[in-house]
């Protein structure tokens, strides 16, 4: 067997190196063909079926096609929000405290009942004001809402406590499936174990731990720009495959066409070598990032000099270049996604400690800081979770960088559950944290930076309290002029990552989707949460 695999390797090495160029998903002028079944991979099974309740993408991929949202991200331009169940974009009152949304009047649930504003109100009431015993983990994102009203049959109204820059885009949250008021009235937990929406596909059964099936909803309200009825597909089938090697095998043997979260560069190259004529690849910077989080409650990490030294020691530019060859991290960035709408320019970024391009100077500065702080031979335990991609390579890289300035970091790897428990209990010295969001939005990406004993409770694992920073985060959230907001966010980055060096990103993730090129009409975005209703996806005939 060993010999055989050597031979295989020899063969594959002579093959042409794969091109990692991004292939366009929608070839210009091609007319979508209806029909067919899309099979795709999901690497976990959702605990319940209720999007309001869960936080894993593993729920969105198989279940999102059953539902509609008020607004969604435009499948053709994923930076733009477009109406879904809404008939038009929301209207704000003059004082910006009332947001009015007009609904489509031609929408039916899969059970045949018509959708009205009562359904939307019941849905948002459940999300924003959950009754006792009902869990809504994202209720906090709507703290600005004081009431949801349904003044007319097809009109919905959100009353706000103060003007908010992010509220309107939050109406496009991929988790906010619109449910039936009647079903919720019968049993508010109905949707934990049942599926009944207005989306392009209706539920067609599932096998626990194995697959999830949806079939075309003939009554779906959506139409494409030529007026043809959506969805194009007859059906879809999500296969639950936890092991990533098995996932690659499934695509390679054409048992699955696509996986919507992402593969490593290596897996992409293996696939394109094995399927040179059948593979398309899309890549994009991802709104996911690992943070180095020093626990400011533990000595010597209460000293900003030590925290800055930890950041300075890491040469992110060299690391990004090297790690992007083998794992899913790539771009150097601050608190907002590099190349995203709120990102700073590189010229600004390099001024922040640890983001400069002179690695040697940075390391010398780090050594000086450690010496000044009285801990030239700092050693600590570095808490990490036992997920190999990309946590393991990122940690190995960090440990090696720190070693070069005299820091001994011991890799303390735990299963996700005890890892989370340690984070939440403050039971660590320095941790590798992570964050993923569905939107480039400072309110989301800065949520971890609120004071730990106030708004950041359960989110801020660096455990500092800083009213000045709270004030800065609050101010940017109320700023509705985009240009000014970017400036405010830049100031926050300078303060939180450099001056105080509370916690800081390592490298931003990079999303790579290799898939069978028969799949058309799906475009990669900056996250793996949105754009999953599959209404516009179609299969090319070969």
């Amino acid at each position: 067997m060993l010999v055989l695999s050597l031979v295989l390797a020899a063969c594959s090495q002579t093959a042409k190196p794969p091109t990692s160029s991004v292939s366009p998903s929608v070839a210009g002028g091609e007319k979508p063909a209806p029909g067919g079944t899309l099979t795709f991979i999901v690497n976990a099974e959702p605990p319940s079926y209720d999007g309001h309740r869960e936080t894993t993408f593993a729920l969105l991929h198989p279940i999102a096609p059953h539902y509609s949202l008020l607004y969604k991200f435009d499948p053709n331009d994923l930076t733009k929000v477009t109406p879904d169940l809404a008939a038009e974009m929301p209207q704000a009152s003059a004082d910006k405290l009332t947001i009015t949304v007009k609904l489509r009047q031609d929408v039916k649930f899969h059970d045949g009942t018509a959708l009205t504003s009562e359904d939307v109100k019941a849905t948002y009431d459940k999300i924003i004001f959950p009754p006792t015993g009902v869990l809504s983990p994202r209720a906090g994102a709507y703290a600005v809402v004081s009431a949801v009203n349904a003044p007319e049959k097809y009109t919905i109204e959100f009353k706000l406590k103060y003007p908010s820059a992010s509220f309107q885009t939050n109406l496009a949250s991929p988790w906010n499936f619109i449910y039936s008021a009647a079903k919720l009235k019968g049993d508010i937990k109905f949707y934990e174990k049942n599926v009944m929406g207005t989306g392009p596909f209706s539920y067609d059964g599932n096998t626990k731990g194995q697959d999830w099936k949806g079939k075309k909803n003939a009554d779906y309200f959506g139409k494409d720009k030529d007026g043809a009825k959506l969805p194009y597909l007859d059906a879809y089938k999500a296969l639950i495959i936890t092991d990533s090697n098995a996932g690659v095998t499934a695509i390679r043997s054409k048992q699955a066409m696509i996986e919507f979260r992402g593969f490593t560069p290596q897996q992409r190259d293996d696939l394109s070598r094995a399927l040179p004529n059948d593979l398309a690849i899309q890549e994009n910077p991802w709104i996911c990032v690992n943070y180095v989080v020093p626990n400011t409650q533990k000595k010597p990490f209460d000293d900003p000099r030590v925290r800055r030294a930890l950041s300075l020691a890491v040469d992110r530019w060299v690391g990004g270049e090297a790690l992007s060859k083998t794992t899913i991290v790539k771009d150097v960035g601050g608190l907002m996604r590099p190349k995203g709408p709120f990102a700073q320019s590189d010229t600004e970024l390099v001024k922040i400690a640890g983001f400069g391009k002179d690695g040697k100077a940075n390391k010398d500065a780090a050594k000086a800081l450690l010496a000044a702080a009285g801990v030239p031979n700092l050693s600590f335990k570095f808490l990490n979770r036992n997920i190999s991609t990309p946590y393991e390579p990122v940690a190995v890289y960090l440990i090696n960088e720190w070693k070069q300035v005299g820091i001994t970091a011991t890799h303390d790897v735990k299963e996700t559950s005890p890892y989370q428990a340690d984070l939440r209990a403050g039971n660590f010295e320095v941790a590798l944290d992570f964050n993923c969001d569905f939107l480039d939005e400072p309110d989301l990406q800065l949520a971890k930076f609120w004071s730990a004993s106030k708004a950041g409770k359960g989110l801020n694992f660096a455990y500092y309290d800083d009213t000045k920073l709270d004030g800065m985060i609050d101010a940017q959230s109320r700023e509705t002029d985009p240009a000014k907001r970017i400036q405010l966010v830049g100031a926050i980055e300078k303060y939180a990552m450099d001056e105080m060096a509370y916690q800081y990103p390592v490298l931003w993730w990079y999303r790579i989707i290799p898939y069978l090129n028969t799949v058309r009409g799906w475009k990669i975005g900056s996250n793996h949460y949105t754009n999953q209703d599959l209404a516009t996806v179609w299969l090319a005939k070969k």
Partner: protein
Amino acid sequence: MSGTGSALDSAREAEDVIKRRYLESAGRRRFMRFWRDFVRQRPLGTAGAVLIVIMLLAAAFADIVAPYDPTAINFADLLLPPAPDHLLGTDNFGRDVFSRVLFGSRTALAVGFTASLVGCTLGLVLGVLGAYVGGRTDQIIQRLMDVLLSFPLIVIAIAVVAALGTGEDKLANVIAAITVPIVPRVARVVRSSALSVVQMPYIEATRSVGAGAVRIMFRHVAPNVFAPYLIMLTAFLGQAILLEASLSFLGLGVFEPTPSWGLMLRGAGMQFLERAPWLAIAPGVAISMAVFGFNLFGDSLRDALDPRLRTG
């Protein structure tokens, strides 16, 4: 007893010493003869022994033999194929695979020896204790062993690892996770062998002379069940190394940057299987050869020590 005459005691002790010396020297001669026969009659076992010796040497002299620091990252040399510079190539961090394999033998031996030694010895103690004392103690031990035996191995492993944590300084926990399942298996076999020893007349005779229970168990019963103990020790040595690889595969074993065969095979080995097969072949061969060696040796040892012994 100590007050009744130290002269008598010391005379007895002297006699004991003489007797032991004689037995030992005879033992040494018998020992040499045993190995001469072993090498001559059992080529497979000898091959196994050679593999084990190679592994021991690799572990002992890893510092000297290894051309590179096994944890030194070098981004300029990512995924290089085997060449004179890097005999077994480099991995996804540019680390030298040959050096990592050499140092990995330390991890493997530490896991293998400690887990099987501690596991088998605990099993030996419990087995002998149960067989000798009998009655309620035996019943309780047996039920406890039944509980451990019927307990899914993976739950024990995950529980120990999760409760105590893993990481580069936590090798002991991985070892503990592998040790626990060994105990009941050994205890069972030892108990059944010990039962027949306990019923022998000379044990009764020793007891009647007034020897203490502990003394009888460890001076007289235990040495007689030493053969199955030794055989299981070598068999579990190999299995412990394999189990560490399986735990690593599930993300519960040794962690980066510690050089470990299981980790190398699971992590980079599986991920870069096609692009850089040397990453999987080197640790894979190392594991297989080590386990192979211990098994071949153990098998032949069993045949040599006791051809009628049945241990699965």
